[in-house]
């Protein structure tokens, strides 16, 4: 308790100008930066997968299951930073029991459950069911039992039933696209609907969140595809990578346009909060916004990918470029979330001053914990790739 106050007294000495006395500590920290980041990766990876399935972009076929399983791995971790940040995590279930219909946050439990069970799990199941059945016949021991359970007892492999797998999987993917929009869009709405906070309160917020989610998800799949190919010593399909890069380029343009529009509008209208927000952006957010998010995370990838549309260097060089670009984009989108969440709490709602934020190293809201939440999905993905290897799927017979 005493250490907690030592931290707060220190922050009190760092207040610039005037803040309401209760505004000293930031209530939403790194964990709340992580949550939209992770659900954004989920939504984005899923949209990329649906490009292949619904919009018949077949060049992306090598990444289809990878994108789905990545979405699954990250979705399983998504709730954890959220629940661990609550003041009373043991009461988290209340959001499912007494959800307040006027609160965007109350959607969370149901949208999450819906997306997990009806969209992701079902789509993966329809895609892998045939393999579950065949693998359960081919393997032994505990793996055999796992596959048997995963078939849910539907072991019929007749052409008609397999056709149903395809049709139902297609239907689920079609439903999944607006579901993915809802899964991440509502997070944007949570921020965008807070009229008390002018940095958050904009109509564009859910849309910006969505497009930056798609950008991060596409970059993630690109990165994972290259990493997995490297680990398996199986070179990635350059045509697939080129296609992913092209989609990344176009979505990045849209994302940048939306964010730029938001800022231009804000600068032009220059309403009440303009002065304090200008100070925020040019001061406390200078590095995280201009350098990390805009320059490294948007400009460099945009220009590079743009050039690559006109002139394509050798395959080997392209792969390294894609690797660097996907990492830059992922870092840039992380800082976009940072700038929204942390930035919105750094200035006082009185518009008269600033508080400060220092990311701790240890503790439930520390950077080590945040790193753990980011690494965990990769471990889960590794497990999923062991259990459901896309490259061991049985070839189609018809």
């Amino acid at each position, binding site marked *: 308790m005493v250490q907690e106050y030592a931290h707060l007294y220190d922050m009190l000495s760092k207040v610039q100008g005037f803040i309401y006395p209760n505004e000293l500590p930031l209530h939403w920290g790194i964990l709340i930066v992580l949550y939209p980041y992770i659900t954004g990766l989920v939504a984005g990876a899923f949209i990329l997968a649906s490009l292949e399935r619904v919009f018949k972009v077949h060049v992306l076929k090598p990444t289809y299951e990878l994108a789905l399983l990545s979405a699954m791995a990250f979705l399983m971790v998504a709730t954890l930073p959220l629940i661990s940040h609550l003041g009373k995590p043991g*009461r988290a279930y209340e959001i499912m029991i007494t959800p307040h219909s006027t609160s965007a946050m109350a959607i969370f439990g149901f949208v999450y459950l819906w997306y997990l069970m009806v969209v992701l799990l079902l789509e993966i199941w329809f895609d892998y069911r045939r393999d579950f059945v065949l693998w359960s016949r081919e393997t032994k021991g505990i793996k055999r039992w796992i596959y048997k359970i995963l078939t849910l007892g539907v072991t019929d492999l007749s052409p008609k039933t397999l056709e149903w797998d395809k049709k139902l999987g297609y239907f689920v993917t079609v439903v999944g696209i607006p579901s993915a929009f809802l899964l991440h869009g509502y997070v944007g709405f949570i921020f965008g609907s807070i*009229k008390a906070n002018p940095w958050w309160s904009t109509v564009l917020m859910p849309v910006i969140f969505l497009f930056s989610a798609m950008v991060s998800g596409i970059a993630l799949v690109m990165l994972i595809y290259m990493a997995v190919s490297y680990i398996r010593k199986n070179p990635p399909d350059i045509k697939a990578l080129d296609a992913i890069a092209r989609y990344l380029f176009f979505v990045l343009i849209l994302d940048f346009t939306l964010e730029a529009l938001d800022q231009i509008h804000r600068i032009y209208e220059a309403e009440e909060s303009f002065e304090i927000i200008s100070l925020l952006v040019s001061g406390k957010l200078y590095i995280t916004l201009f350098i990390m998010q805009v320059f490294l995370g948007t400009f460099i990838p945009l220009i590079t990918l743009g050039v690559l549309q006109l002139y394509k260097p050798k395959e080997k060089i392209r792969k390294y470029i894609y690797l660097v670009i996907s990492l830059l984009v992922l870092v840039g989108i992380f800082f976009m979330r940072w700038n929204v969440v942390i930035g919105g709490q750094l200035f006082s709602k009185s518009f008269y001053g600033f508080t400060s934020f220092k990311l701790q190293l240890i503790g439930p809201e520390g950077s080590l914990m945040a790193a753990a939440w980011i690494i965990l999905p990769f471990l889960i993905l590794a497990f999923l790739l062991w259990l459901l290897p896309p490259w061991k799927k049985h070839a189609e017979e018809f």
Partner: protein
Amino acid sequence: MKSRREFLKAAAIAGGSVLVSSMFRPFNAVVFAANEPANPTDIWYGIGIDIAKCIGCGRCANACKSENNVPREPFFFRTWVEQYTIKNDQSVKVESPNGGIDGFTQSVAPEDIFKTFFVPKMCNHCYKSPCVQVCPVGATYDSPEGVVLVDQTHCIGCRYCVQACPYGCRYILPDKGVVDKCTLCYHRITKGLNPACVEVCPTGARMYGNLHDPADPLMKFIKDHNVRVLKPHLNTGSKLYYNELNEEVR
């Protein structure tokens, strides 16, 4: 076939009449019915603060902490006092050292001061409260008498309400992890006592009363003075009416 037509006809009449009758009741935003008791004889609490009378003694903020067991550290306030100093160069300085509990010292030289005054702040007990709107589990609510309260056994500590309050009234209790805020001393006013801040104010700058009672002293205060609420453009339905609220006050 005939009976089906009859049924459809009846359904159309029923549906149409529901639609028409809904037009006679004013449309309240879907997301929140303005929380005013439907019965005009039911009590509906409001608050009045007269800035002309506030002397910045900080007794209100002090009494509130004693009355409501609020931690004494300078990070948790149900109510606090701000001092505004507008200098001759038109710059505005606002300060609230320990919420005003230890009093104020004026650091600006008198010859540089254009205008200076104190502003007590507290929960506005909004009747279109954004904090009630955003609570995901129904842990904060508008009581039937118009007092915004917290159910601390139900609160999950998500802090969405803290973000949504435009006036900075809410804070998290350090050891409990749940939200706390001014309750208009609900435990006192339901027993006919004044809220602690109103009780101790030496100049009578703070008052509370029944907005549904035309004879209530609060209603006289509102009638006789030019009263304003904080951040009216946010349409929070604030029931905290200030007299002599200057343009610089946020």
